[in-house]
């Protein structure tokens, strides 16, 4: 249950074995290949390197063609499944052997040509249809014109033309023509708020005069040179043409749909080609010389024999060497946990992988996430539905390993909320009073009526969780031999937290209860003393006060040894001042706590010390340490915020129950309606409870996760590990089955 140990591997191979080796590595998928070329390029060995440029042009072209066909076909796919299929991508199952033979199996070039052809035809038809539509739009205003369009133009004596002017101008135009050119005929064909369309007949000899008037009113001539019959007949013809074209389009779409059966095969081809490209690209990471090449990579230590065996099978000529990671090297990370914790790795990955020498937080966060999720969802019915649904989906859907783990994680969450739901008596949020008595006996607390208890419980869980985080930090420090950090940081925290909590409890107890119990009177003064000592510990240890003291004493020793009197004296003054200051602070706090004697003397001493301390450098460092201790004390107040943050567990738990309760109440109200009532009730119950489950599922996932990341991880965990990504076959659309 930790980060898997890795070995670094070097392979030195003759160029003739290049293809076999790459294929084997790809198939085996055990080696995380590093860029050795780049590493070597910075050393003296650089002149030995030979450039290796894999020819990718052809592959890229083919891949983009496959992608085009796939996109093209998907556009015509009839969507099914709807909502859920948008969230989870299904994959195709393929046997290993047929995967490798896919290139021979399908005549891709024929398919591509056919698709391209169909695409062109379709584009052509679409273009024509849109042209027709535009023409029809233009003709529509002239629908009532019964003149053949070919008759427009000039006769021997007259001019016949159609055109438009802006509607506001039309009246003026008409008037002016009637007045000035009597031998003309203006017929309004159609009119809207913008333009007026009209037919105008006039004598040729008057055309100058007519055109002059027309121009004045913003005339635009209109003509349909390609058309002959009346607009009505032409529109009819266009509509017929459109129907024909639409039919042609449907026929082509049907042809395309007939090709859809090829899609799974094309996916296989796509992934196959992509893998081929990856095989070519990875070779840029090898250090190539004229005759040989070298690979650097990481292998899981446990699987090294397996790896070596396979390599030896290719040829005895391949040189394999391996070493442990050296200090400062960052091997890629593989997490390994017991199967029960495996689904929780999803959460660790989401935050970021640990560094090689760090602990894997998965087993530590798992129980808390489980419990918190349970509290937030907190209902037996919802938990059951969630667990069953996730279990079913993980079995039924062909999804990747990661998605499957996520389903298992949610299924765990469902189980957790069944447990919590049982303890709080929540079954589809039905009123506790109407539960059968054997279920009532299981109930520990009633979250609504004992809300205070529920809240306290949430915060108590928070205290446990945070303290666990600090404990892990302590273990981490001890493991990595940072004893000083452990003594100075974690020990004061652990002593201070109980003291401050006890004191808070006593203080609150005295303020709230009217008749404090006798134990309180006994405990309160003790708690106050504990608090005082805790504060002193935090200030002087976390501020590294004593560490500073020691380094000052070292200065004294060095000064005496090197016979540098000035240095020794400076150090000595620092040490004396430290002790003086420490005593005056402690004295002040102790007199305050005990209530005996006057603390004023110590206050004066402290003031005097600060004034004197500021004068010299070595004593100033003592004051700086003290100030940083005060800051640590302030920092510890952050714990209170962290603890309170866990109150959200209660809020989310209540949210589920109360919304469900309202849904049930609505259902009961609907039951009052005769006949229809029962149907409506069933509908509202199903829809309502599904809504409640989904909306609270989101909260029940996000908030416990936040508690892990923000409140828990900050004490002991930092990410930054690189994922172990072995060179292997990666599929986007497929799940491969090995025989």
């Amino acid at each position, binding site marked *: 249950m930790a980060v898997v140990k890795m070995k670094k591997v070097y392979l030195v191979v003759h160029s003739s074995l290049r293809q076999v080796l790459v294929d084997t590595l790809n198939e085996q998928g055990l080696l995380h290949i590093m860029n050795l070329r780049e590493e070597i390029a910075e050393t003296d060995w650089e002149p030995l390197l030979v450039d290796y440029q894999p020819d990718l042009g052809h592959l890229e072209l083919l891949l983009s063609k496959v992608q085009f066909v796939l996109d093209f076909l998907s556009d015509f796919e009839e969507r099914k499944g709807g909502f859920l299929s948008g969230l989870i991508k299904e994959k195709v199952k393929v046997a290993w052997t047929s995967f490798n033979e896919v290139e021979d199996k399908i005549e891709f070039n024929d398919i591509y040509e056919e698709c391209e052809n169909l695409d062109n035809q379709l584009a052509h038809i679409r273009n024509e249809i849109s042209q027709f539509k535009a023409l029809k739009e233009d003709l529509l205003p002239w629908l009532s014109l019964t003149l053949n369009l070919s008759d427009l133009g000039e006769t021997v004596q007259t001019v016949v033309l159609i055109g438009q002017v802006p509607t506001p101008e039309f009246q003026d135009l008409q008037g002016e023509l009637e007045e000035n050119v009597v031998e003309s005929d203006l017929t309004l064909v159609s009119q809207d708020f913008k333009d007026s369309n009209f037919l105008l007949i006039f004598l040729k000899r008057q055309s100058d005069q007519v055109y002059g008037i027309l121009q004045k009113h913003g005339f635009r001539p209109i003509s349909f040179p390609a058309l002959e019959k009346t607009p009505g007949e032409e529109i009819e013809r266009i509509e017929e043409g459109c129907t024909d074209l639409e039919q042609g389009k449907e026929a082509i779409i049907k042809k395309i749909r007939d090709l859809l059966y090829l899609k799974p095969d094309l996916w296989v081809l796509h992934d196959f080609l992509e893998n081929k490209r990856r095989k070519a690209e990875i070779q840029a990471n090898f250090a190539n010389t004229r005759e040989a090449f070298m690979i650097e990579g990481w292998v899981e230590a446990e699987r090294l024999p397996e790896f070596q065996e396979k390599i030896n099978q290719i040829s005895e000529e391949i040189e394999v060497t391996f070493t442990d990671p050296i200090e400062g090297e960052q091997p890629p990370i593989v997490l390994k946990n017991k199967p029960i914790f495996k689904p929780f790795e999803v959460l660790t990955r989401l935050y970021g992988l640990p560094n090689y020498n760090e602990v894997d937080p998965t087993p530590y966060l798992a129980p808390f996430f489980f419990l918190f999720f349970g509290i937030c969802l907190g209902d037996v019915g919802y938990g059951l539905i969630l667990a069953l649904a996730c279990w079913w989906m993980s079995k039924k859907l062909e999804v990747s390993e990661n998605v499957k783990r996520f389903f298992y994680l949610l299924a765990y969450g469902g189980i957790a909320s069944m447990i919590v739901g049982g303890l709080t008596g929540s079954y589809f949020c039905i009123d506790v009073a109407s539960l059968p008595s054997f279920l009532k006996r299981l109930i520990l607390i009633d979250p609504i009526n004992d809300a205070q208890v529920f809240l306290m419980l949430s915060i108590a869980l928070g205290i446990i969780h945070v303290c666990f985080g600090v404990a892990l930090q302590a273990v981490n420090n001890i493991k990595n031999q940072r004893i000083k950090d452990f003594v100075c940081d974690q020990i004061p925290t652990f002593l201070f937290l109980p003291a401050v909590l006890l004191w808070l409890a006593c203080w609150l107890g005295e303020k709230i209860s009217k008749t404090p119990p006798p134990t309180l009177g006994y405990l309160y003064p003790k708690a106050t003393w504990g608090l005082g000592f805790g504060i002193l510990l935090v200030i002087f240890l976390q501020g590294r006060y004593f560490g500073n003291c020691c380094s000052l004493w070292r200065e004294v020793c060095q000064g005496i040894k090197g016979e540098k009197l000035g240095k020794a004296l400076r150090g000595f003054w620092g040490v004396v001042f430290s002790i003086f200051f420490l005593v005056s602070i402690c004295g002040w706090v102790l007199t305050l706590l005990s209530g005996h004697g006057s603390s004023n003397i110590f206050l004066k001493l402290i003031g005097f010390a600060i004034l004197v301390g500021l004068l010299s450098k070595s004593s100033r460092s003592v004051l700086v340490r003290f100030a940083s201790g005060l800051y640590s004390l302030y920092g510890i107040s952050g714990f209170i915020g962290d603890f309170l943050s866990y109150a959200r567990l209660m809020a*989310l738990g209540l949210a589920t129950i109360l919304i469900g309760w309202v849904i049930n109440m609505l259902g009961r109200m609907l039951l009052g309606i005769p006949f229809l009532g029962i149907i409506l009730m069933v509908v509202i119950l199903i829809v309502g409870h599904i809504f409640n489950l989904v909306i609270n599922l989101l909260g029940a996932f996000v908030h416990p996760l936040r508690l892990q990341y923000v409140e828990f991880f900050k004490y002991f965990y930092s990410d930054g590990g690189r994922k172990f990504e072995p060179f292997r076959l990666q599929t986007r659309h497929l799940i491969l089955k090995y025989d």
Partner: protein
Amino acid sequence: MILGLSGFHWALLGAAAAALGGGIGSSIGITYIANVAAGILVEDPEKFGGLLPLCAIPGTQGIYGFITAVLVVFFFGLIGGEGGKLTSPQGFQIFLACMPVCFACLVSAIYQGLTAVGAAGMVAKRMEEAGKALILPALVETYAALSLIISILLLLSIRAGL
């Protein structure tokens, strides 16, 4: 009588204010993030799974307000008719108890929506970080949850004092 309103009226006002504050905040917050999400989905419909939780996150404040309103109705019998017995000061207390949820949810939902917009940008660029993107807006939610808790505690203590 405080401001001429009976206890029943004050309690109603409190419940309404809680539901209103949460509801307004959530709808504004969700509008911000859903608009952006729609824009991202135009380019990349596959990111629906990563964006939907982000869009839903500012919705919880509306639920908190709703819960508070339901609790007022439930605790003080506003439906059954017992609410008529509340004295005006008691009703006023109920009204005050609803205020934390009303205001904290109103404001935090809007800002949570804005934070989610930033997180949506993260999802748009790097889908694999969708999990982290979800955590950031959830930080804003803390204060809505705290206000809900304090409102519930206040309501409980008022009920205990009746």
